[in-house]
């Protein structure tokens, strides 16, 4: 087994408007507060079932990398003009900073070094047996703690510093909001292109980590003082998806390498395909079929966000690691529905995780001549519809929690030689 060293650091990060805001974070190396490039995020790492620790932005390890993050189609779909058959169990997915990946059957092993002047903690929320948390417990300044535990069932999990309330990580959002948060993705090794044994198959997956930045809390913490939300109510002023906001999140900055990374890891994209939501494992040839892409949202922030997709509804398949039923749905005591269903606006409470399939299909309400004449990619926004999150420092719309997705331009690929539907 190999252990990942995690360093709890502090430093200043530039926001989308250039303002430097104090952050704390789980990093890959020890850095000081004055470091011009502090290590405040973990680069993606994979704990394999075979006991290795592999730094990798992509998973499954060794799978082909989709160019600019966008899988190319296998064939035209003879049954659905204008649509394509996509490769099954083929493409790798890219993952953003703050992601840890653990294969089912692996052991998560982290040695956490607290470089700061206060006690801190690294907790994997709900990653223990029976939904209990796995945590280092409080780590005193300058000390290190080893945490090891078997990977929980496949799904997405939040890791964070739960602050004063390790018994209830939702109760104290301060350290998490200062930046001490990320996502653990446990993969299903029986089929690495399926989120869980009962979950949907996907062409590729995308992990979206939502976050909110409160500069007033950051200022207090930077002085070494304690943030008390009763005294200083939360007032987030920057809203991020995978650590970026606004034009940087949309990949349209003059920093071409940063744009490139956004395309690979955040901006969902693929060729049109006709998905049947009753069966995301619809094979047509041995290696190609019809399925969508999986969006896995994890809200490490403090606000309720509303992920609104333009262009396609999404099919919500799992909430907080539980695959939703397809029949016998229920409404819980809080008024939330537990049944797989379509949504165009996905509500994300703090610490909530949801998996949704973006079908990447023809937008249903376009007229035929426009669809048939398309020759360019069609870009659609995805943004939070709690519109207070759509600005940066009180203005500069759309400078907040935004992303987007793209239906690729038509490409010339042949139909499959054999059109017999495979199981």
């Amino acid at each position, binding site marked *: 087994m190999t252990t990942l060293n995690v360093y709890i650091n502090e430093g200043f990060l530039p926001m989308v408007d250039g303002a430097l805001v104090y952050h704390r974070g789980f990093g890959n190396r020890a850095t000081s507060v004055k470091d011009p490039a502090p290590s405040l995020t973990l680069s993606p790492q994979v704990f394999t079932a075979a006991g290795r620790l592999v730094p990798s932005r992509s998973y499954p390890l060794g799978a082909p990398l989709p160019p600019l993050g966008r899988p190319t189609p296998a064939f035209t779909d003879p049954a659905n003009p204008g649509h394509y058959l996509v490769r099954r169990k083929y493409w790798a997915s890219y993952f953003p900073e703050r992601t840890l990946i653990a294969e089912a059957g692996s052991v998560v092993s982290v040695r956490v070094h607290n470089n700061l002047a206060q006690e801190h903690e690294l907790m994997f929320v709900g990653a223990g047996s029976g939904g209990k948390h796995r945590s280092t417990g409080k780590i005193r300044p300058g000390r290190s703690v080893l945490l090891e535990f078997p990977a929980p069932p496949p799904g997405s999990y939040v890791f964070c510093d739960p602050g004063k309330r390790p018994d209830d990580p939702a109760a104290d959002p301060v350290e998490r909001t200062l930046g001490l948060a990320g996502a653990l993705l446990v993969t299903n090794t029986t089929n690495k292109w399926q989120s869980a044994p009962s979950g949907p198959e996907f062409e590729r997956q995308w992990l979206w980590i939502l976050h909110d930045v409160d500069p007033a809390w950051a200022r207090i913490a930077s002085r070494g003082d304690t943030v008390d939300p009763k005294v200083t109510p939360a007032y987030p002023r920057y809203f991020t998806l995978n650590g970026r906001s606004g034009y940087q999140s949309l990949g349209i900055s003059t920093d071409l390498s940063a744009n490139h990374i956004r395309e690979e890891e955040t901006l969902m994209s693929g060729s049109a395909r006709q998905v049947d939501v009753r069966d995301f494992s619809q094979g047509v040839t041995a290696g190609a079929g019809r399925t969508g892409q999986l969006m896995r949202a994890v809200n490490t922030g403090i*606000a309720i966000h509303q992920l609104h997709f333009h262009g396609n509804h999404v099919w919500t398949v799992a909430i907080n690691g539980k695959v939703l039923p397809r029949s016998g749905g229920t409404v819980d005591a809080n008024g939330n529905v537990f049944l797989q269903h379509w949504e165009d606006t996905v509500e994300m409470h703090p610490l909530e995780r949801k998996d949704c399939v973006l079908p990447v299909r023809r937008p249903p309400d*376009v007229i035929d001549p426009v669809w048939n004449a398309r020759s360019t*990619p069609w870009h659609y926004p995805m943004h939070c519809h709690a519109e207070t999150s759509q600005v940066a420092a009180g203005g*500069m719309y759309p400078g907040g929690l935004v992303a987007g997705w793209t239906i690729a331009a038509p490409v010339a690929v042949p139909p499959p030689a054999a059109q017999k539907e495979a199981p």
Partner: protein
Amino acid sequence: MSEEAHHLYRSQVEFSSDQIHEGSPATEFLQKPDRAVELDFFNDKMTFDDGAEHEIWAFETKDSGRVLPSPLLRMTEGEIFHATIHPSKRVHTVHWHGIEPDPRNDGVGHTSFEVSGEYTYQWQPERGRPGDPNFGSAGTYFYHCHVNTPLHVQMGMFGGLIVDPIVHPDYPVEPGITRRAFVDGPEYDLASETVLAAYAVDTRWHQMNHAAGLSGEDVGLDRYEPRHFYLLGGELARGPKREGPWQLKAIRANAGGGSRKPTLLRLINANNFPVHMSFTTAAGKPVAMAELIAHDGRPYRDTSSLGASPPTGAVGNPLMTSMIDFGAAERFDVLLRPPTPGQYRLTVDLYHWITGAVLATKVIPVTVT
């Protein structure tokens, strides 16, 4: 979005202030419409039922008068729909929230263009197919301006949008008396069909100018402190009777067992914050009288079989609840199935997106006959 279709920006403020303006862009492949509407922009002061007067920006049609929400638009699946926008002095767009056309007709300034002259949006809601979860756009939506959106939606630039299903021979209706919310959905009573849009006003925002914040100034559009909470809407068969805000005072619902079909309630959250709704007796005891039949314009179905996917209510598993919790921009279609005639209450709480604190509450009587 990617560099292949957009030019690159050096800063957020450059992006925010450099919008893609086209005065009067052309509609590609303009068809003969089955439904057409002209939407003009207006601004006016409106007095609400709590006595407050707010500056409101909204859309109006030739016949609608100046109402809030902006006039309800309604069409049938398969119809080619045109809406021509005349923004007046400023630039605006119309985004058809939940309707999914091509990007030019999606009405988002940053991925298409903003309109200063006029533009005719064109789309065709997809036809539903009984038992098929993959097709059909019948349902409840809303439309809104997508320019400086936090401000423009808060100012009132939104309206309800309903797509009715095609009538399938296997799922007939009584013309003028009943309808279905989607192609194979349950019949509901047209006379009592009601829309409810939750809307809360932060008066500070209503003092701002059209482009507030776009040049980089901090205008506090991340600080939403609503002091006035309204339930807009009413019975669709009656519509707003006069200009100004159309405010829901009461709900009439049909009791089960008679010849009348159940009442359909269409819920829209036009806030930035979530709402929590509960149905109770007049004494406050929860009553699971709400059957959730659709969400965001799509029916709830049983999709466990590769064959037909019937609506949940049709397979003996209606999603019955006394409570509905939903955030900004979500919609629900709710069939009211009260156990007996009598007086009930719908309580709607507006709550804070971070603290969860209840900021305002409205109680609406529900009379079941």
